[in-house]
């Protein structure tokens, strides 16, 4: 609205004098923040908790970890004791069995009808199909498999048993424990080596940095799989060997990350100030520079856990994994694969568990990355 001062519209002209008193003050300060200041980690946790998928993922991971700790003790079966009489038992779960799922039944195909009389008492539930083959009466018959092989009443294998009659549930969660431990140790080792290496390269710079970086680059050029396989051959199979093999080149990413952070922060004024005050190298590294790298390093650790779980099961698949009879998720998957078409449940359970773990770790890591890095945007 434009007005002429000499010809003001009435409502403006007639404003009372009191309106035109100067009330502005000489000292106007910047408006203080109305919200409470929250620290970096509090803020990160707050943002993480707002990410629903990450929260679900976190609880799934926790559930798997707790199960991996306690379930093997609860089932009452030994993970390694073989019982060839009870081979490949189907899953049977108390409660669910009445609903017709996981009831321990199995359809036996191509049985001569005459042989039915030899079946243990009460094991036959239903004859599914009758037919003649080369003049012999044949049947497909649904049996209570537990009774069929003579498992005592009241004994349950929640996930069935494997080809050596071992309880799959016990083995699966023990396997999860071993896989998680391998992943954990491998990641911890990689982080420690990576942080120390990266810190040295980044802090000292110059020739030290050049040599360290070149060495890491050369190592990084080697195909990961080939190196891992070669070192597995050298170390032999076993949990410790897997951790070692995963560490040979696994630390390079962290080292690169830490080095970059050091380059970013070591030139900052506050570091220079600390240095002029005579703060020693070690204090500078650990107190003044390294904390800046913690966010990305944590994220990286989280992201590499599923990678390590994958590598472990991969090695198991190609025959370089955990020493039998010890289980790991990979060993179980690999064993299950052989009988996939006959006994799919032996693959289903470890496959579901590894998928849940991998998806959860990835989702959680993504949430963590977004929470720790406010500039990250638009990533899935």
């Amino acid at each position: 609205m434009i007005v002429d001062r000499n010809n003001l519209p009435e409502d403006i002209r007639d404003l009372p004098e009191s309106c035109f008193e100067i009330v502005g003050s000489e000292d106007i300060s910047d408006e203080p923040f109305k919200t409470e200041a929250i620290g970096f980690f509090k803020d990160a946790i707050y943002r993480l908790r707002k990410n629903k998928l990450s929260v679900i993922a976190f609880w799934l991971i926790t559930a798997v970890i707790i199960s991996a700790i306690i379930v093997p003790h609860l089932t009452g079966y030994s993970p390694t004791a073989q019982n060839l009489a009870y081979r490949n038992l189907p899953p049977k779960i108390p409660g669910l069995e009445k609903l017709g799922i996981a009831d321990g039944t199995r359809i036996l195909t191509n049985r001569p009808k005459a042989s039915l009389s030899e079946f243990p008492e009460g094991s036959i539930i239903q004859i599914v199909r009758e037919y003649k083959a080369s003049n012999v009466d044949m049947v497909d018959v649904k049996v209570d498999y537990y009774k069929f092989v003579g498992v005592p009443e009241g004994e349950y294998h929640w996930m069935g048993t494997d080809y050596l009659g071992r309880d799959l549930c016990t083995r699966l969660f023990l396997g999860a424990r071993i896989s998680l431990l391998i992943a954990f140790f491998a990641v911890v080792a990689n982080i420690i080596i990576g942080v120390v290496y990266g810190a040295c390269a980044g802090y000292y710079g110059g020739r030290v940095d050049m040599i360290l970086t070149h060495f890491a680059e050369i190592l990084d050029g080697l195909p990961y799989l080939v190196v891992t396989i070669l070192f597995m051959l050298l170390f032999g199979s076993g949990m410790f060997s897997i951790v070692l093999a995963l560490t040979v080149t696994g630390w390079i990413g962290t080292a690169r990350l830490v080095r970059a952070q050091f380059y970013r922060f070591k030139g900052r004024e506050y570091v220079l100030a600390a240095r002029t005050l005579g703060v020693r190298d070690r204090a500078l590294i650990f107190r003044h520079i390294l904390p800046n790298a913690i966010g990305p390093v944590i994220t990286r650790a989280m992201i590499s856990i599923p990678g390590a779980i994958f590598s472990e099961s991969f090695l198991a698949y190609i025959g370089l994994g955990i020493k039998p009879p010890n289980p790991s998720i990979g060993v179980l998957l690999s064993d299950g694969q052989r009988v996939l078409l006959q006994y799919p449940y032996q693959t289903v359970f470890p496959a579901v568990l590894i998928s849940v773990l991998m998806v959860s770790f990835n989702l959680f890591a993504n949430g963590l990355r977004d929470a720790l890095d406010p500039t990250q945007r638009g990533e899935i």
Partner: protein
Amino acid sequence: MAERDKRDVILQVKDLNVSFRTYGGIVRAVRGVTFDLRRGETVAIVGESGSGKSVTIKAIMGILPSNATIESGEILYGGMDLTKLTEEEFHNIRGKRIGLIFQDPLSALNPIMKVGNQIMEALILSQKMSKKAARQRALELMEAVGIPDVERRFNQYPFQFSGGMRQRIVIAIALAGDPEILICDEPTTALDVTVQARILELINKIKEERHLSVIFITHDLGVVATMADRVNVMYAGKIVETGTSEEVFFEPAHPYTWALLSSMPDLETKERLFSIPGTPPNMISPPPGDAFSVRNRYALRIDFEKEPPLFKITDTHYAATWLLHPKAPRVEMPEALKTRIERMRRRAVGNE
């Protein structure tokens, strides 16, 4: 506004209102902006970041982000209302009628495309020029904006250019379609001081040569003085003062303009540089009354209650402050600023 100026109006922005949908709520970035651009003149829009100046020109170019809407108002150009144009119709305006120069030439150029191709691209794609003709024209443009050794430079990539040279390329791109209006969005902010002056000279030179009308966006009043015929001062999405350069510089009427002028660095001032106290208002819920009142030490009671209208001072000079009301107490601008303006005025006279 003024009938006296006979130069015809080429672009007219009328009561423009633009708001953004954000997570925090509706941000009312531009609130009733009105100004016009006449043939051959340079109009400057001055204001702090977040004052709505860039949003205004994005509305003119039709490149508002997708979460922005033009609530009301008109942008009249060549008998059309630009706010009503479809995306297709806009292609005939952008580049060909109105060119835009960006703030940061590094991020405005595609890093993996030869600069020559970036200049030629629009000529070939939207003006259907032949490749050869487009190349010829691109080379001419590069020469016109002062790039040496054009034949070689033509095939280079943006990262091989210095900041100032990159901005010259951006200017060449803006000129490629031979527009009649050139909008400069803080064209020198990202450049070194020494380069700034040369780019400004260049803009003035091509403006004369090509008879361009220029809208110049900046937060730097010092730049405005050398460039603009008329100045619009924006605060919190509104134009708070408008006038010819001389009027706004030598007889500023709005306390915000005073504050801006006082905070301008200059060689002679010995005392501590003035900074405007407080923070710009939150545009999700702009305060009632004058948005500047909370930071204004001359604020009147009514400033907190009622928005001031634009008071006419001369035919070309208007300011939105209750201080211009006949009943308002006579408030003089601060003494320091007065001496400053006096100095500027003497220098301006001396230069002529």
